[in-house]
């Protein structure tokens, strides 16, 4: 019998055995446990910054854990794309309850802050991410294909040239003049407010790039006829003819009938 076996009934033996068991189990777990996949490429500090900004600016309406309240929906699953779009175009934070969040020119947050909030929201649940610039800049996009896709999927709400249109009860599809390609892509993929979702399987990234190219081409084209009247089609053209054209004709008619001084 060796020395260890001789002391097997020592009172400290149980304590030592338990400690050994715990250590072995702990090491075994640490070595063999499956690691959770690291989906977010954001550094942990960016997510924390984002959380702080979220609590200060967004939690009133969206809840402390972005679970949603009566006035704001849950943000679990909307993804970084939705946050980057909504905050990058000035729609969020919404100043007060309204039928629709309007696009604003002055953005309160810097791109770094927006990216931080986006990283935080993306960490809550998987959702569409920020698009690759290769597919969202519009460069190399087929403008004609983009035009055809735009007319099939988008023109019924946004008008043939992206000049915007009305929906029901005060909602509207905004005009798409001078929107960055990244925001156009993100809007398609996240489906903000009344807009449906056009995910990457519906309209592929190359097709989305084509649509961005088409919209940027419309922004940059010179209207050789003169005044485009907002590209609103026959309504604004008719209004112009009735008000100015008919006004001129009525003016001439009145002048013709008057006697000279």
């Amino acid at each position, binding site marked *: 019998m060796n020395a260890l076996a001789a002391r097997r009934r020592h009172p400290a033996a149980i304590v030592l055995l338990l400690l050994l068991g715990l250590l072995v189990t702990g090491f075994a777990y640490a070595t063999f446990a499956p690691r959770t996949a690291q989906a977010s490429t954001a550094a942990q500090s960016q997510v924390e910054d984002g959380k702080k900004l979220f609590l200060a600016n967004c939690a009133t309406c969206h809840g402390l854990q972005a679970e949603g309240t009566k006035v704001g929906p849950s943000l679990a699953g909307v993804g970084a794309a939705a946050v980057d779009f909504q905050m990058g175009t000035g729609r969020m934070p919404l100043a007060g309850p309204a039928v629709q969040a309007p696009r604003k020119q002055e953005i309160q947050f810097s791109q770094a802050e927006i990216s931080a909030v986006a990283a935080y929201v993306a960490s809550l649940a998987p959702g569409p991410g920020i698009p690759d610039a290769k597919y969202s800049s519009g460069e190399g996009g087929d403008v004609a294909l983009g035009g*055809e*896709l735009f007319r*099939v*999927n988008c023109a*019924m*709400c946004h008008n043939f040239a992206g000049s915007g*249109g009305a*929906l*029901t009860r005060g*909602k509207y599809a905004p005009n798409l003049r001078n929107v960055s390609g990244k925001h156009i892509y993100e809007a398609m993929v996240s*489906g903000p*407010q*009344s*807009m*449906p*979702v*056009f*995910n990457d*399987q*519906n309209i592929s990234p190359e*097709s989305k790039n084509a649509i961005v190219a088409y919209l940027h081409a419309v922004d940059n084209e*010179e*209207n*050789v*006829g*003169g*005044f485009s009247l907002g590209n609103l089609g026959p309504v604004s053209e008719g209004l112009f003819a009735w008000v100015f054209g008919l006004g001129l004709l009525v003016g001439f008619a009145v*002048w*013709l009938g008057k*006697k*000279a*001084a």
Partner: protein
Amino acid sequence: MSEHEGRRGEVVGTDGFGATAVRLDQGHVEVHGGLPERFSNPGLPPHVPRLSDLHEKGAKRAEKQVATLFGLSALGTLVFLVCYFAIDQEQVAFIPGIGKANLYNVVLGVSLAFALLGIGVGAVHWAKTLMPDTEMVEERHTLRASDADRQRAADDFLAGGPAAQLDRRPLIKYSLGGALGLFALPLVLQLVGGLGPFNIQQLKHTIWKKGDRLVRDPERTPIRADQVTVGSVYHVLPESIKDSQHVLEDKGKAAVLLMRLNPDEIKVKKERDWGHDGIVAYSKICTHVGCPVGLYEQTTHHLLCPCHQSTFDVTDDCKVIFGPAKRPLPQLKITVDSEGYLVADAPFAQPVGPSFWERDRT
């Protein structure tokens, strides 16, 4: 009808206007139109002389104005002639008030406007200021021709028939009548024929068949059920559109909108059964006048037609909740085939699009 007293105190007419009626064979009769005595003809307003009639200076000024207008017209014409050759057709310039516009168009247009308006406005101004402006009355001559002329016209007309040998040769009369009568038929046929196709059955069917895959418009690629996420909208055509000989006619009836909703939000069991796990397909052709109903509001699940604003509730089997449409949109029954692609499980159960007379008849 009121009565009034005549000048000698006796009751005259019964209609308050006094004068007796004029017959058409009385020749020229001058009357005062039945006006009551208290209305007198005020005549023309007093003539106001113009400045150019009163002072020679005014006339000279008017002459200078007319000459300036004609001169402006000449200037406009010259500018047109020069710029037609001088300005490049692609030249773009900034015009204040309009923005960037094609300079060639603007300059030619404005110069031509001056050229024409100068002549027109100058001529009108000349007429107003320097031409005579005294008021003149031209009497209307009697319209009725003399009795002898009227008799002669009637006689000539009546002599025409026998002169054309129409009474001696009835065959001409009958064959002419037949030809003219028959000629009305092509006109009537076109009017009636334009009311609809002879084969009314073709209005009731679309090219959708059982087993037709749903393909994206315009790429015409098939769609898998897992590619349709909640809130998505796909604009869909049947795969058989690729073999169609009349693509636009077929597309105009077969266009379908594919949407995915949360199955708990769908209130009607038939809609859930005819869809696939929350994916539902509805005809895109409005039941009002046939515009494509493409405006899907994701948050409210309403489909809006842009033409007359008929609104359909997708959670309630596309029932009409606003607007002039009277029938809900027909649903296309869909399912998934063995490879996971969405296919139509049956053609439309009712004719799509606007109403027509024979719609409910079998």
